[in-house]
Protein backbone atom coordinates (compact mmCIF):
# COMPACT_ATOMS: atom_id res chain seq x y z
CA UNK A 1 0.00 0.00 0.00
CA UNK A 2 1.28 3.44 -0.79
CA UNK A 3 1.62 6.14 1.83
CA UNK A 4 -1.46 8.09 0.74
CA UNK A 5 -3.80 5.07 1.04
CA UNK A 6 -2.40 4.33 4.48
CA UNK A 7 -2.78 7.97 5.49
CA UNK A 8 -6.39 8.01 4.21
CA UNK A 9 -7.27 5.02 6.36
CA UNK A 10 -5.61 6.68 9.34
CA UNK A 11 -7.41 10.01 8.95
CA UNK A 12 -10.80 8.36 8.44
CA UNK A 13 -10.22 6.07 11.43
CA UNK A 14 -9.47 9.15 13.57
CA UNK A 15 -12.90 10.52 12.67
CA UNK A 16 -14.56 7.17 13.38
CA UNK A 17 -12.72 7.09 16.71
CA UNK A 18 -13.87 10.61 17.54
CA UNK A 19 -17.56 9.83 17.07
CA UNK A 20 -17.46 6.35 18.59
CA UNK A 21 -15.65 7.51 21.72
CA UNK A 22 -17.99 10.45 22.32
CA UNK A 23 -20.86 7.97 22.31
CA UNK A 24 -19.28 5.94 25.12
CA UNK A 25 -21.20 6.49 28.35
CA UNK A 26 -19.03 8.22 31.02
CA UNK A 27 -19.86 5.40 33.44
CA UNK A 28 -17.78 3.09 31.24
CA UNK A 29 -14.73 5.31 30.83
CA UNK A 30 -12.53 3.06 32.95
CA UNK A 31 -13.43 -0.09 30.96
CA UNK A 32 -12.89 2.03 27.83
CA UNK A 33 -9.33 2.71 28.88
CA UNK A 34 -8.74 -0.92 29.74
CA UNK A 35 -10.09 -2.18 26.41
CA UNK A 36 -8.27 0.45 24.32
CA UNK A 37 -5.17 -0.67 26.13
CA UNK A 38 -5.84 -4.25 25.12
CA UNK A 39 -6.54 -3.47 21.47
CA UNK A 40 -3.56 -1.15 21.09
CA UNK A 41 -1.52 -4.27 21.75
CA UNK A 42 -2.36 -5.25 18.19
CA UNK A 43 1.24 -4.06 17.89
CA UNK A 44 1.88 -7.75 18.57
CA UNK A 45 1.53 -8.13 14.77
CA UNK A 46 4.79 -6.23 14.35
CA UNK A 47 6.36 -8.16 17.20
CA UNK A 48 5.43 -11.49 15.60
CA UNK A 49 6.88 -10.48 12.24
CA UNK A 50 10.13 -9.43 13.91
CA UNK A 51 10.42 -12.61 15.94
CA UNK A 52 9.53 -14.91 13.05
CA UNK A 53 12.15 -13.77 10.56
CA UNK A 54 15.58 -15.23 11.05
CA UNK A 55 17.37 -12.32 9.39
CA UNK A 56 18.76 -10.86 12.58
CA UNK A 57 19.14 -12.67 15.91
CA UNK A 58 18.97 -9.44 17.93
CA UNK A 59 15.83 -8.37 16.10
CA UNK A 60 14.31 -11.78 16.82
CA UNK A 61 14.89 -11.46 20.55
CA UNK A 62 13.59 -7.90 20.57
CA UNK A 63 10.53 -9.23 18.78
CA UNK A 64 10.02 -12.07 21.25
CA UNK A 65 10.32 -9.65 24.18
CA UNK A 66 7.71 -7.44 22.52
CA UNK A 67 5.47 -10.50 22.05
CA UNK A 68 5.62 -11.18 25.79
CA UNK A 69 4.82 -7.55 26.70
CA UNK A 70 1.98 -7.30 24.18
CA UNK A 71 0.54 -10.64 25.35
CA UNK A 72 0.45 -9.42 28.96
CA UNK A 73 -1.58 -6.48 27.72
CA UNK A 74 -3.89 -8.43 25.45
CA UNK A 75 -4.83 -11.12 27.97
CA UNK A 76 -4.69 -8.81 30.97
CA UNK A 77 -6.55 -5.99 29.24
CA UNK A 78 -9.42 -8.06 27.90
CA UNK A 79 -9.72 -10.09 31.12
CA UNK A 80 -9.83 -7.08 33.40
CA UNK A 81 -12.34 -5.35 31.11
CA UNK A 82 -14.53 -8.45 31.19
CA UNK A 83 -14.28 -8.52 34.98
CA UNK A 84 -15.32 -4.88 35.27
CA UNK A 85 -18.16 -5.09 32.77
CA UNK A 86 -19.60 -8.13 34.53
CA UNK A 87 -20.12 -5.94 37.61
CA UNK A 88 -22.39 -3.40 35.93
CA UNK A 89 -25.94 -4.41 36.77
CA UNK A 90 -29.33 -2.82 36.32
CA UNK A 91 -31.69 -2.18 39.21
CA UNK A 92 -34.08 -5.10 38.61
CA UNK A 93 -31.49 -7.69 37.60
CA UNK A 94 -30.48 -8.34 41.19
Amino acid sequence: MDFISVLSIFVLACFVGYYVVWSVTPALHTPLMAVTNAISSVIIVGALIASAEAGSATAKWLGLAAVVLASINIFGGFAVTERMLAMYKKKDSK
Partner: protein
Amino acid sequence: MSLPRDVEPLAVPPGTDYGMSHAVETAATHGPTNPWVALAYLVAGVFFILALRGLSSPATSRAGNRNGMIGMLIAVVTVIVTHDIANIVEILIAIAIGGLIGFTIARKIAMTQMPELVAGFHSLVGMAAVLVGLAAWMNPGAFGILDAEGQILTVSRIELGLGIAIGAITFSGSVIAFLKLSGRMGGKPIMLPGRHVINLGTLAAIIALIAAYAMSATAGPGEGWMIIAVAVLAFAIGFLLIIPIGGADMPVVVSMLNSYSGWAAAAMGFTLGNTAMIITGALVGSSGAILSYIMCRAMNRSFISVIAGGFGADDSAAGGGEAREQRPYKQGSADDAAFMLEQAEKVIIIPGYGMAVAQAQHALREMGDVLKAKGVDVKYAIHPVAGRMPGHMNVLLAEANVPYDEVFELEDINSEFAQADIAFIIGANDVVNPAAKTDKSSPIYGMPVFDVGNAKQVFFIKRSMGGVGYAGVDNDVFYLNQTTMLLSDAKKMVEEIVKALD
Protein backbone atom coordinates in the same frame (compact mmCIF):
# COMPACT_ATOMS: atom_id res chain seq x y z
CA MET B 1 18.29 -22.75 10.89
CA SER B 2 15.56 -22.16 8.36
CA LEU B 3 15.83 -19.98 5.30
CA PRO B 4 13.77 -16.87 4.63
CA ARG B 5 10.65 -17.80 2.74
CA ASP B 6 11.22 -16.46 -0.76
CA VAL B 7 14.76 -17.70 -1.12
CA GLU B 8 15.41 -20.87 -3.08
CA PRO B 9 19.17 -21.16 -3.12
CA LEU B 10 19.23 -23.75 -5.90
CA ALA B 11 16.96 -21.90 -8.25
CA VAL B 12 18.32 -18.42 -7.68
CA PRO B 13 21.98 -17.96 -8.42
CA PRO B 14 23.75 -15.94 -5.76
CA GLY B 15 24.80 -12.41 -6.60
CA THR B 16 23.26 -9.59 -8.55
CA ASP B 17 20.17 -11.36 -9.78
CA TYR B 18 18.94 -12.30 -6.34
CA GLY B 19 19.71 -8.81 -5.09
CA MET B 20 17.65 -7.24 -7.85
CA SER B 21 14.62 -9.44 -7.54
CA HIS B 22 14.64 -9.09 -3.78
CA ALA B 23 14.83 -5.33 -4.04
CA VAL B 24 12.00 -5.17 -6.55
CA GLU B 25 9.87 -7.39 -4.38
CA THR B 26 10.45 -5.50 -1.14
CA ALA B 27 9.95 -2.11 -2.71
CA ALA B 28 6.58 -3.23 -3.99
CA THR B 29 5.50 -4.96 -0.79
CA HIS B 30 5.27 -2.11 1.62
CA GLY B 31 2.77 -4.05 3.70
CA PRO B 32 0.76 -7.08 2.67
CA THR B 33 0.06 -7.38 -1.04
CA ASN B 34 -2.24 -10.38 -0.87
CA PRO B 35 -5.74 -8.85 -0.91
CA TRP B 36 -7.06 -11.56 1.45
CA VAL B 37 -4.46 -10.68 4.04
CA ALA B 38 -5.23 -6.97 3.75
CA LEU B 39 -8.93 -7.84 4.03
CA ALA B 40 -8.36 -9.88 7.19
CA TYR B 41 -6.59 -6.94 8.86
CA LEU B 42 -9.40 -4.64 7.77
CA VAL B 43 -11.97 -6.99 9.35
CA ALA B 44 -9.90 -7.02 12.55
CA GLY B 45 -9.95 -3.21 12.51
CA VAL B 46 -13.73 -3.20 12.11
CA PHE B 47 -14.08 -5.54 15.10
CA PHE B 48 -12.02 -3.08 17.15
CA ILE B 49 -14.38 -0.26 16.16
CA LEU B 50 -17.32 -2.45 17.24
CA ALA B 51 -15.56 -3.13 20.54
CA LEU B 52 -15.59 0.56 21.40
CA ARG B 53 -19.07 1.05 19.99
CA GLY B 54 -20.36 -1.58 22.43
CA LEU B 55 -19.30 0.59 25.34
CA SER B 56 -22.04 3.12 24.57
CA SER B 57 -24.19 1.25 27.10
CA PRO B 58 -23.50 -1.26 29.87
CA ALA B 59 -26.03 -3.60 28.23
CA THR B 60 -23.98 -3.98 25.04
CA SER B 61 -20.55 -3.56 26.59
CA ARG B 62 -19.70 -7.20 27.11
CA ALA B 63 -20.51 -8.06 23.51
CA GLY B 64 -18.21 -5.17 22.62
CA ASN B 65 -15.36 -6.63 24.61
CA ARG B 66 -15.87 -9.98 22.86
CA ASN B 67 -15.65 -8.20 19.51
CA GLY B 68 -12.31 -6.80 20.61
CA MET B 69 -11.08 -10.31 21.39
CA ILE B 70 -12.29 -11.60 18.01
CA GLY B 71 -10.49 -8.74 16.25
CA MET B 72 -7.27 -9.53 18.09
CA LEU B 73 -7.58 -13.24 17.27
CA ILE B 74 -8.07 -12.47 13.58
CA ALA B 75 -5.03 -10.18 13.53
CA VAL B 76 -2.75 -12.65 15.32
CA VAL B 77 -3.88 -15.69 13.32
CA THR B 78 -3.48 -13.75 10.07
CA VAL B 79 0.08 -12.77 10.80
CA ILE B 80 0.98 -16.29 11.88
CA VAL B 81 -0.50 -18.08 8.85
CA THR B 82 0.82 -15.61 6.30
CA HIS B 83 4.43 -15.73 7.49
CA ASP B 84 6.62 -18.79 7.36
CA ILE B 85 7.39 -18.96 11.02
CA ALA B 86 10.33 -21.16 11.80
CA ASN B 87 10.25 -20.73 15.55
CA ILE B 88 6.55 -21.19 16.30
CA VAL B 89 7.38 -22.92 19.59
CA GLU B 90 9.37 -19.94 20.86
CA ILE B 91 6.57 -17.61 19.85
CA LEU B 92 3.89 -19.70 21.51
CA ILE B 93 5.97 -19.83 24.68
CA ALA B 94 6.33 -16.03 24.59
CA ILE B 95 2.56 -15.65 24.18
CA ALA B 96 1.91 -18.17 26.97
CA ILE B 97 4.26 -16.39 29.39
CA GLY B 98 2.70 -13.01 28.64
CA GLY B 99 -0.82 -14.41 28.72
CA LEU B 100 -0.31 -16.08 32.07
CA ILE B 101 1.13 -12.92 33.63
CA GLY B 102 -1.67 -10.83 32.14
CA PHE B 103 -4.42 -13.17 33.32
CA THR B 104 -3.01 -13.42 36.82
CA ILE B 105 -2.76 -9.65 37.18
CA ALA B 106 -6.25 -9.13 35.78
CA ARG B 107 -7.78 -11.62 38.23
CA LYS B 108 -5.96 -10.42 41.33
CA ILE B 109 -6.07 -6.66 40.92
CA ALA B 110 -8.39 -4.75 43.27
CA MET B 111 -10.77 -2.33 41.59
CA THR B 112 -9.28 0.53 43.62
CA GLN B 113 -5.94 -0.22 41.95
CA MET B 114 -7.35 0.09 38.43
CA PRO B 115 -5.61 3.44 37.66
CA GLU B 116 -2.17 2.06 38.42
CA LEU B 117 -2.93 -1.13 36.49
CA VAL B 118 -3.93 0.86 33.41
CA ALA B 119 -0.81 3.03 33.75
CA GLY B 120 1.32 -0.10 34.06
CA PHE B 121 -0.30 -1.63 30.98
CA HIS B 122 0.29 1.57 29.01
CA SER B 123 3.97 1.33 29.81
CA LEU B 124 4.03 -2.17 28.30
CA VAL B 125 2.43 -0.99 25.05
CA GLY B 126 5.00 1.79 24.89
CA MET B 127 7.89 -0.58 25.46
CA ALA B 128 6.52 -3.08 22.92
CA ALA B 129 6.37 -0.27 20.35
CA VAL B 130 9.99 0.67 21.06
CA LEU B 131 11.11 -2.97 20.75
CA VAL B 132 9.19 -3.51 17.50
CA GLY B 133 10.62 -0.25 16.15
CA LEU B 134 14.17 -1.28 17.00
CA ALA B 135 13.61 -4.76 15.53
CA ALA B 136 12.33 -3.20 12.30
CA TRP B 137 15.36 -0.93 12.24
CA MET B 138 17.74 -3.88 12.60
CA ASN B 139 15.89 -6.22 10.26
CA PRO B 140 14.00 -3.94 7.84
CA GLY B 141 13.85 -6.68 5.19
CA ALA B 142 11.37 -8.62 7.30
CA PHE B 143 9.06 -5.60 7.36
CA GLY B 144 9.40 -4.89 3.64
CA ILE B 145 10.70 -1.36 4.15
CA LEU B 146 13.94 -1.51 2.13
CA ASP B 147 14.43 0.38 -1.11
CA ALA B 148 16.32 -0.82 -4.19
CA GLU B 149 19.70 0.25 -2.72
CA GLY B 150 19.20 -1.71 0.49
CA GLN B 151 18.44 1.44 2.50
CA ILE B 152 15.37 1.88 4.70
CA LEU B 153 12.72 3.92 2.83
CA THR B 154 12.74 7.58 3.85
CA VAL B 155 9.09 7.63 4.83
CA SER B 156 9.61 4.47 6.89
CA ARG B 157 12.54 6.10 8.67
CA ILE B 158 10.28 8.94 9.82
CA GLU B 159 7.58 6.46 10.87
CA LEU B 160 10.10 4.38 12.79
CA GLY B 161 11.57 7.45 14.48
CA LEU B 162 8.14 8.72 15.50
CA GLY B 163 6.97 5.28 16.64
CA ILE B 164 10.04 4.74 18.80
CA ALA B 165 9.87 8.27 20.22
CA ILE B 166 6.17 8.08 21.12
CA GLY B 167 6.57 4.55 22.45
CA ALA B 168 9.47 5.55 24.66
CA ILE B 169 7.62 8.60 26.03
CA THR B 170 4.60 6.38 26.73
CA PHE B 171 6.82 3.89 28.52
CA SER B 172 8.74 6.18 30.86
CA GLY B 173 5.78 8.50 31.44
CA SER B 174 3.56 5.54 32.35
CA VAL B 175 6.17 4.11 34.67
CA ILE B 176 6.25 7.39 36.62
CA ALA B 177 2.43 7.57 36.58
CA PHE B 178 2.31 3.97 37.83
CA LEU B 179 4.77 4.72 40.66
CA LYS B 180 2.81 7.83 41.68
CA LEU B 181 -0.60 6.15 41.50
CA SER B 182 0.51 3.10 43.45
CA GLY B 183 2.03 5.30 46.16
CA ARG B 184 5.55 4.03 45.51
CA MET B 185 6.48 7.60 44.69
CA GLY B 186 5.07 10.69 46.42
CA GLY B 187 2.09 12.29 44.69
CA LYS B 188 3.51 15.76 45.24
CA PRO B 189 4.75 17.47 42.11
CA ILE B 190 8.55 17.52 41.86
CA MET B 191 9.73 20.72 40.24
CA LEU B 192 13.03 20.95 38.42
CA PRO B 193 14.40 24.43 37.82
CA GLY B 194 14.26 25.39 34.16
CA ARG B 195 12.24 22.30 33.29
CA HIS B 196 10.28 24.01 30.48
CA VAL B 197 13.52 24.90 28.72
CA ILE B 198 14.87 21.37 29.24
CA ASN B 199 11.65 19.76 27.98
CA LEU B 200 11.34 21.95 24.89
CA GLY B 201 15.03 21.51 24.13
CA THR B 202 14.77 17.72 24.39
CA LEU B 203 11.67 17.69 22.19
CA ALA B 204 13.44 19.82 19.56
CA ALA B 205 16.45 17.51 19.70
CA ILE B 206 14.23 14.46 19.11
CA ILE B 207 12.64 16.06 16.05
CA ALA B 208 16.04 17.14 14.73
CA LEU B 209 17.44 13.63 15.18
CA ILE B 210 14.51 12.04 13.32
CA ALA B 211 15.01 14.55 10.49
CA ALA B 212 18.74 13.83 10.42
CA TYR B 213 18.04 10.11 10.27
CA ALA B 214 15.52 10.56 7.46
CA MET B 215 18.08 12.48 5.40
CA SER B 216 21.07 10.33 6.31
CA ALA B 217 22.92 8.73 3.40
CA THR B 218 23.55 5.46 5.24
CA ALA B 219 20.43 3.93 6.67
CA GLY B 220 20.72 0.24 6.04
CA PRO B 221 19.73 -2.39 8.60
CA GLY B 222 20.88 -1.23 12.04
CA GLU B 223 22.64 1.83 10.65
CA GLY B 224 22.12 5.32 12.03
CA TRP B 225 22.98 6.12 15.66
CA MET B 226 20.20 8.74 15.62
CA ILE B 227 17.57 6.06 16.24
CA ILE B 228 19.21 5.04 19.51
CA ALA B 229 19.62 8.70 20.49
CA VAL B 230 15.91 9.29 19.74
CA ALA B 231 14.97 6.39 22.01
CA VAL B 232 17.20 7.58 24.87
CA LEU B 233 16.00 11.21 24.69
CA ALA B 234 12.36 10.11 24.43
CA PHE B 235 12.70 7.93 27.53
CA ALA B 236 14.16 10.96 29.31
CA ILE B 237 11.42 13.35 28.24
CA GLY B 238 8.62 10.99 29.27
CA PHE B 239 10.19 10.88 32.70
CA LEU B 240 10.67 14.67 32.86
CA LEU B 241 7.12 15.40 31.66
CA ILE B 242 5.29 13.36 34.29
CA ILE B 243 7.58 13.97 37.32
CA PRO B 244 6.25 17.52 37.93
CA ILE B 245 2.58 16.56 37.64
CA GLY B 246 0.71 16.18 40.94
CA GLY B 247 -1.78 13.55 42.09
CA ALA B 248 -4.89 15.60 41.30
CA ASP B 249 -3.96 15.79 37.63
CA MET B 250 -3.38 12.05 37.29
CA PRO B 251 -6.71 11.41 35.49
CA VAL B 252 -5.48 13.69 32.69
CA VAL B 253 -2.05 12.07 32.64
CA VAL B 254 -3.43 8.53 32.45
CA SER B 255 -5.77 9.55 29.61
CA MET B 256 -2.94 11.32 27.80
CA LEU B 257 -0.67 8.29 28.03
CA ASN B 258 -3.58 6.17 26.78
CA SER B 259 -3.68 8.42 23.75
CA TYR B 260 0.11 8.19 23.21
CA SER B 261 0.04 4.39 23.33
CA GLY B 262 -2.46 4.57 20.46
CA TRP B 263 -0.35 6.93 18.37
CA ALA B 264 2.67 4.67 18.91
CA ALA B 265 0.70 1.68 17.59
CA ALA B 266 -0.49 3.78 14.63
CA ALA B 267 3.07 4.80 13.76
CA MET B 268 4.09 1.12 13.70
CA GLY B 269 1.02 0.42 11.58
CA PHE B 270 2.29 2.94 9.01
CA THR B 271 5.65 1.16 8.92
CA LEU B 272 3.96 -2.17 8.28
CA GLY B 273 1.18 -0.78 6.09
CA ASN B 274 -1.12 -2.72 8.38
CA THR B 275 -4.73 -1.49 8.47
CA ALA B 276 -5.61 -3.23 11.74
CA MET B 277 -2.81 -1.40 13.53
CA ILE B 278 -3.58 1.94 11.91
CA ILE B 279 -7.31 1.77 12.69
CA THR B 280 -6.63 0.67 16.26
CA GLY B 281 -3.98 3.31 16.76
CA ALA B 282 -6.33 6.02 15.52
CA LEU B 283 -9.18 4.75 17.74
CA VAL B 284 -7.04 4.54 20.87
CA GLY B 285 -5.32 7.82 20.10
CA SER B 286 -8.60 9.69 19.74
CA SER B 287 -10.08 7.90 22.74
CA GLY B 288 -7.27 9.02 25.03
CA ALA B 289 -7.34 12.54 23.60
CA ILE B 290 -11.09 12.85 24.18
CA LEU B 291 -10.80 11.53 27.74
CA SER B 292 -7.99 14.03 28.43
CA TYR B 293 -10.21 16.79 27.09
CA ILE B 294 -13.17 15.68 29.26
CA MET B 295 -10.95 15.57 32.35
CA CYS B 296 -9.43 18.99 31.65
CA ARG B 297 -12.89 20.49 31.10
CA ALA B 298 -14.11 18.95 34.36
CA MET B 299 -11.29 20.69 36.21
CA ASN B 300 -11.43 23.87 34.13
CA ARG B 301 -7.74 23.47 33.36
CA SER B 302 -6.15 23.81 29.98
CA PHE B 303 -4.28 20.81 28.67
CA ILE B 304 -1.11 22.90 28.41
CA SER B 305 -1.26 23.94 32.06
CA VAL B 306 -1.68 20.31 33.16
CA ILE B 307 1.33 19.26 31.12
CA ALA B 308 3.30 22.24 32.38
CA GLY B 309 2.64 20.67 35.77
CA GLY B 310 2.75 21.66 39.40
CA PHE B 311 -0.97 21.86 40.28
CA GLY B 312 -1.47 22.74 43.97
CA ALA B 313 2.24 23.00 44.66
CA ASP B 314 2.18 26.65 45.69
CA ASP B 315 -0.80 26.21 47.98
CA SER B 316 0.58 23.25 49.85
CA ALA B 317 3.78 25.18 50.43
CA ALA B 318 1.90 28.18 51.81
CA GLY B 319 -0.80 26.24 53.63
CA GLY B 320 1.58 24.58 56.05
CA GLY B 321 2.74 27.64 57.91
CA GLU B 322 -0.32 29.82 57.69
CA ALA B 323 -2.80 29.49 60.58
CA ARG B 324 -6.21 29.08 59.04
CA GLU B 325 -9.10 31.11 60.38
CA GLN B 326 -11.29 29.01 62.69
CA ARG B 327 -14.89 29.16 61.60
CA PRO B 328 -17.77 27.57 63.48
CA TYR B 329 -19.15 24.34 62.11
CA LYS B 330 -21.68 21.79 63.32
CA GLN B 331 -20.56 18.28 64.12
CA GLY B 332 -22.91 15.30 64.26
CA SER B 333 -22.94 11.61 65.06
CA ALA B 334 -23.96 8.53 63.10
CA ASP B 335 -27.27 8.48 65.01
CA ASP B 336 -28.09 12.05 63.94
CA ALA B 337 -27.34 11.18 60.33
CA ALA B 338 -29.37 7.95 60.47
CA PHE B 339 -32.35 9.78 61.96
CA MET B 340 -32.36 12.46 59.27
CA LEU B 341 -31.73 10.00 56.43
CA GLU B 342 -34.73 7.92 57.49
CA GLN B 343 -36.98 10.98 57.41
CA ALA B 344 -35.80 12.07 53.98
CA GLU B 345 -37.65 11.51 50.73
CA LYS B 346 -34.73 12.07 48.44
CA VAL B 347 -31.05 11.54 49.16
CA ILE B 348 -28.19 12.22 46.76
CA ILE B 349 -24.88 10.57 47.62
CA ILE B 350 -21.67 12.13 46.32
CA PRO B 351 -18.75 9.72 46.57
CA GLY B 352 -15.17 10.83 46.02
CA TYR B 353 -11.72 9.32 46.06
CA GLY B 354 -11.73 9.32 49.88
CA MET B 355 -14.46 6.68 49.76
CA ALA B 356 -12.22 4.45 47.67
CA VAL B 357 -9.28 4.99 50.00
CA ALA B 358 -11.43 4.03 53.01
CA GLN B 359 -12.93 1.07 51.07
CA ALA B 360 -16.35 2.32 52.13
CA GLN B 361 -18.23 1.48 48.91
CA HIS B 362 -19.73 -1.79 50.18
CA ALA B 363 -20.92 -0.22 53.43
CA LEU B 364 -22.30 2.68 51.40
CA ARG B 365 -24.31 0.37 49.14
CA GLU B 366 -25.69 -1.34 52.25
CA MET B 367 -26.78 2.04 53.59
CA GLY B 368 -28.41 2.79 50.24
CA ASP B 369 -30.25 -0.55 50.30
CA VAL B 370 -31.59 0.01 53.83
CA LEU B 371 -32.77 3.50 52.89
CA LYS B 372 -34.42 2.27 49.69
CA ALA B 373 -36.21 -0.43 51.71
CA LYS B 374 -37.57 2.39 53.86
CA GLY B 375 -38.92 4.13 50.78
CA VAL B 376 -36.22 6.77 50.39
CA ASP B 377 -35.23 7.77 46.86
CA VAL B 378 -31.45 7.23 46.73
CA LYS B 379 -29.27 8.45 43.88
CA TYR B 380 -25.53 8.61 43.39
CA ALA B 381 -23.86 11.62 41.78
CA ILE B 382 -20.44 11.28 40.22
CA HIS B 383 -18.15 14.07 39.15
CA PRO B 384 -16.05 13.40 36.03
CA VAL B 385 -12.80 13.78 37.98
CA ALA B 386 -13.88 11.78 41.03
CA GLY B 387 -11.27 9.09 41.59
CA ARG B 388 -7.92 8.77 39.92
CA MET B 389 -9.01 8.01 36.37
CA PRO B 390 -12.07 8.63 34.19
CA GLY B 391 -15.03 6.56 35.36
CA HIS B 392 -13.14 5.09 38.31
CA MET B 393 -15.91 5.80 40.80
CA ASN B 394 -18.51 4.12 38.58
CA VAL B 395 -16.49 0.91 38.57
CA LEU B 396 -16.11 0.98 42.35
CA LEU B 397 -19.85 1.45 42.84
CA ALA B 398 -20.59 -1.27 40.29
CA GLU B 399 -18.26 -3.57 42.20
CA ALA B 400 -20.25 -2.87 45.35
CA ASN B 401 -23.41 -3.90 43.42
CA VAL B 402 -24.85 -0.41 43.08
CA PRO B 403 -27.12 -0.63 40.00
CA TYR B 404 -25.78 1.62 37.25
CA ASP B 405 -29.17 3.23 36.66
CA GLU B 406 -28.96 4.81 40.12
CA VAL B 407 -25.67 6.49 39.28
CA PHE B 408 -25.77 9.88 37.55
CA GLU B 409 -23.31 12.25 35.94
CA LEU B 410 -22.79 15.82 37.07
CA GLU B 411 -24.83 17.59 34.39
CA ASP B 412 -27.72 15.11 34.67
CA ILE B 413 -28.26 15.46 38.39
CA ASN B 414 -27.02 18.89 39.41
CA SER B 415 -30.44 20.54 39.07
CA GLU B 416 -31.97 17.94 41.40
CA PHE B 417 -30.20 19.14 44.54
CA ALA B 418 -32.89 21.82 44.93
CA GLN B 419 -35.44 19.04 45.46
CA ALA B 420 -33.17 16.85 47.55
CA ASP B 421 -33.62 16.58 51.30
CA ILE B 422 -30.09 15.40 51.90
CA ALA B 423 -26.80 15.67 50.05
CA PHE B 424 -24.54 12.99 51.50
CA ILE B 425 -20.88 13.68 50.72
CA ILE B 426 -18.41 10.89 51.33
CA GLY B 427 -14.74 11.31 50.53
CA ALA B 428 -15.27 14.16 48.07
CA ASN B 429 -14.30 17.76 48.66
CA ASP B 430 -13.19 19.96 45.77
CA VAL B 431 -16.08 18.77 43.57
CA VAL B 432 -18.63 20.32 45.97
CA ASN B 433 -16.66 23.49 46.72
CA PRO B 434 -18.70 26.60 45.83
CA ALA B 435 -15.46 28.61 45.61
CA ALA B 436 -15.21 27.17 42.09
CA LYS B 437 -18.19 29.38 41.20
CA THR B 438 -17.62 32.44 43.38
CA ASP B 439 -13.95 32.92 44.18
CA LYS B 440 -11.94 34.07 41.20
CA SER B 441 -8.66 33.70 43.10
CA SER B 442 -9.31 30.05 43.95
CA PRO B 443 -7.15 27.49 42.14
CA ILE B 444 -10.30 25.54 41.28
CA TYR B 445 -12.23 28.57 39.97
CA GLY B 446 -14.33 27.69 36.94
CA MET B 447 -14.48 23.97 37.65
CA PRO B 448 -18.04 22.64 37.40
CA VAL B 449 -19.18 21.56 40.89
CA PHE B 450 -22.21 20.00 42.56
CA ASP B 451 -24.60 22.61 44.01
CA VAL B 452 -24.95 20.77 47.33
CA GLY B 453 -25.84 24.05 49.04
CA ASN B 454 -29.26 23.80 47.36
CA ALA B 455 -30.13 20.64 49.31
CA LYS B 456 -32.12 21.09 52.51
CA GLN B 457 -29.44 19.32 54.51
CA VAL B 458 -25.85 18.34 53.90
CA PHE B 459 -23.95 15.53 55.61
CA PHE B 460 -20.23 15.67 55.02
CA ILE B 461 -18.11 12.67 55.98
CA LYS B 462 -14.51 13.71 56.47
CA ARG B 463 -11.64 12.28 58.44
CA SER B 464 -10.91 15.56 60.24
CA MET B 465 -11.32 19.30 59.76
CA GLY B 466 -7.59 19.61 59.14
CA GLY B 467 -7.19 18.11 55.70
CA VAL B 468 -8.32 19.94 52.62
CA GLY B 469 -8.84 18.69 49.08
CA TYR B 470 -6.10 18.14 46.54
CA ALA B 471 -6.38 21.72 45.43
CA GLY B 472 -5.49 22.78 48.97
CA VAL B 473 -8.44 25.15 49.44
CA ASP B 474 -10.95 25.57 52.25
CA ASN B 475 -14.55 24.64 51.53
CA ASP B 476 -17.47 26.93 52.49
CA VAL B 477 -19.83 23.93 52.51
CA PHE B 478 -18.33 22.88 55.88
CA TYR B 479 -19.70 26.01 57.51
CA LEU B 480 -23.18 26.20 55.98
CA ASN B 481 -26.13 26.28 58.36
CA GLN B 482 -27.58 23.09 56.95
CA THR B 483 -24.27 21.20 57.00
CA THR B 484 -23.45 18.55 59.60
CA MET B 485 -19.87 17.32 59.62
CA LEU B 486 -19.40 13.63 60.35
CA LEU B 487 -15.76 13.48 61.35
CA SER B 488 -14.58 9.89 61.15
CA ASP B 489 -13.17 7.25 58.89
CA ALA B 490 -15.66 6.96 56.02
CA LYS B 491 -16.15 3.20 56.29
CA LYS B 492 -16.61 3.24 60.07
CA MET B 493 -19.07 6.12 59.91
CA VAL B 494 -21.22 4.51 57.21
CA GLU B 495 -21.24 1.19 59.05
CA GLU B 496 -22.39 2.99 62.21
CA ILE B 497 -25.13 4.74 60.26
CA VAL B 498 -26.31 1.39 58.88
CA LYS B 499 -26.40 -0.01 62.41
CA ALA B 500 -28.34 2.99 63.65
CA LEU B 501 -30.83 2.63 60.80
CA ASP B 502 -31.84 -0.90 61.80
